[in-house]
């Protein structure tokens, strides 16, 4: 049994169908990507898995427990965590408070100070700005904050929605390296990313979403070799 099982998941915004019977499995310890053009339904898929949008059909199972309709905060408590698109740090709270809120759930709270020390040691820039409001950070710093804040929740599966969006090439590298390290520490990763070339180096498997449906699945090597992927996402 896979750690995360998505079976025939559909999402509608009013009459508009955003996801149509999407199925996806993520095994413990894997790194998986979902590719697709803009508006293909990638963000909707992650939002549905996190419980931020209601599902109109299908099911989501995490560690063998059905969570299709459980509230978003319960999924975080179980260890199913997302770093959303656009980072979404709390702009008017300090860097420190942002991080501490990552350890809000009863499961993560006992390790709060330990996780905090680890994150601050890893990113001295966050340490230097610990008392500043999060909105005063640069885009790259905000992404690091969002990433470390999500790690404070002690995730079992970390979902990332466009973590490199709007970042300078050097920072993209730094963020992708950090995600690779997180994965190597044993966290299961489900990533949606425009930067397909870099992402395929990081993941084991991937699926391609088109118009809300899975159009193609395969290992990272298979996807890299696929003419369709090369033409549409790698620009080769």
């Amino acid at each position, binding site marked *: 049994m896979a750690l995360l099982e998505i079976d025939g998941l559909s999402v509608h915004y009013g009459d508009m169908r955003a996801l149509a019977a999407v199925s996806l499995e993520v095994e413990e310890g894997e790194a998986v990507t979902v590719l697709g053009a803009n508006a293909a339904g990638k963000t909707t898929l992650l939002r549905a898995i996190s419980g*931020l949008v209601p599902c109109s059909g299908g099911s989501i199972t995490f560690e063998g427990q059905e969570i299709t309709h459980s*509230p978003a905060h319960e999924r*975080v408590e179980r260890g199913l965590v*997302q770093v959303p698109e656009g980072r*979404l*740090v*709390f702009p008017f*709270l300090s860097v420190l*408070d942002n991080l501490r809120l990552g350890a*809000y759930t009863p499961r993560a709270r006992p390790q709060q100070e330990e996780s905090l020390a680890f994150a601050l040691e890893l990113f001295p820039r966050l340490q230097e700005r610990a008392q500043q409001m999060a909105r005063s950070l640069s885009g790259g710093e905000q992404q690091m904050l969002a990433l470390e804040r999500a790690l404070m929740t002690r995730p079992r599966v970390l979902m990332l929605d466009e973590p490199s969006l709007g970042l300078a090439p050097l920072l993209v590298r730094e963020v992708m390296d950090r995600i690779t390290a997180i994965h190597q520490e044993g966290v299961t990763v489900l990533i949606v990313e425009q930067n397909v070339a870099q992402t395929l180096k990081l993941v084991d498997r991937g699926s391609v979403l088109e118009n809300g449906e899975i159009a193609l699945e395969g290992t990272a090597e298979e996807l890299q070799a696929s003419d369709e992927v090369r033409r549409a996402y790698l620009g080769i």
Partner: protein
Amino acid sequence: MDLALQIIASGLLTGGIYALLAVGLTLIFGVLRVVNFAHGEFMMLGMYGAFWMWALWDIDPYLSVFAVVPAIFGLGLLTDRLIIKRTIGAPEVTVVFATLGLSILLQNAALTVFSADTRSVTTGYTGTALSFGEVRVSIPMLISFVVAIGLALALWAFLSRTRFGKAIQATAQNRDAAALMGINVQRVYMMTYAIAVAGAGAMGAIAAPVFSVYPRVGLSFVITAFVIVVLGGLGSVLGAVIAALLVGLVQSVVGFLVGAAWAEIAYFVLFIAVLVLRPQGLFGRRGAEVYQGA
């Protein structure tokens, strides 16, 4: 000079009492994005609570706060469950009609149960005053002021110092991101609403020794509170406290210099001037009135 001090003192005292009503209103707006038109009615219920406890059992209105606050807090939880929760995410008109409807319902329920009579609490300290040189300060006003400002600042400390307070702030700043941290957003909404209306109830109880109570009393107070909230900056608790003191001061100064009828006009003029010069209010953040979730 003494006269000037007298006017300033009475302005600040009135303003301080308003602060407790305004902080709840601004909190509900900032966190739930709901304009709570029923806010004044929770104050009215608090006043009746204090009045009846005094009339029936001779309980001092300041002591009745300890009974009024939990009662209105419970009523707030219930109101969120039954009404407010169902309007979250609905079009703005739905929210306006829901809270306005609740306001009308509570006013008329009070009218039916308590009649339209104006009632006042008279205690041993009614009409007593302290003298500081030539400045005389009404004792019940002074106590009400101290309790109101104390509770408003306690609320501010709760929001900025405690874990749950920070979760409330996080939810106000980005609802989705808060949910992704494992914060139960529905619970934050429910607690925020209940805390805020309990504040209005507390204000009602401590205003009972100073102001008369009648079913529509909340309306006259809440309109001023709305002005204070916008003046201080929507969603800003500290802004609401300072704006409340400012409005009280303007009312008092203009009321003395020009005439009581001009007092309300004056703070509405101040209100319009601030909106023209600084639309986000004195301590507000630009864009705070826009829902920030994705």
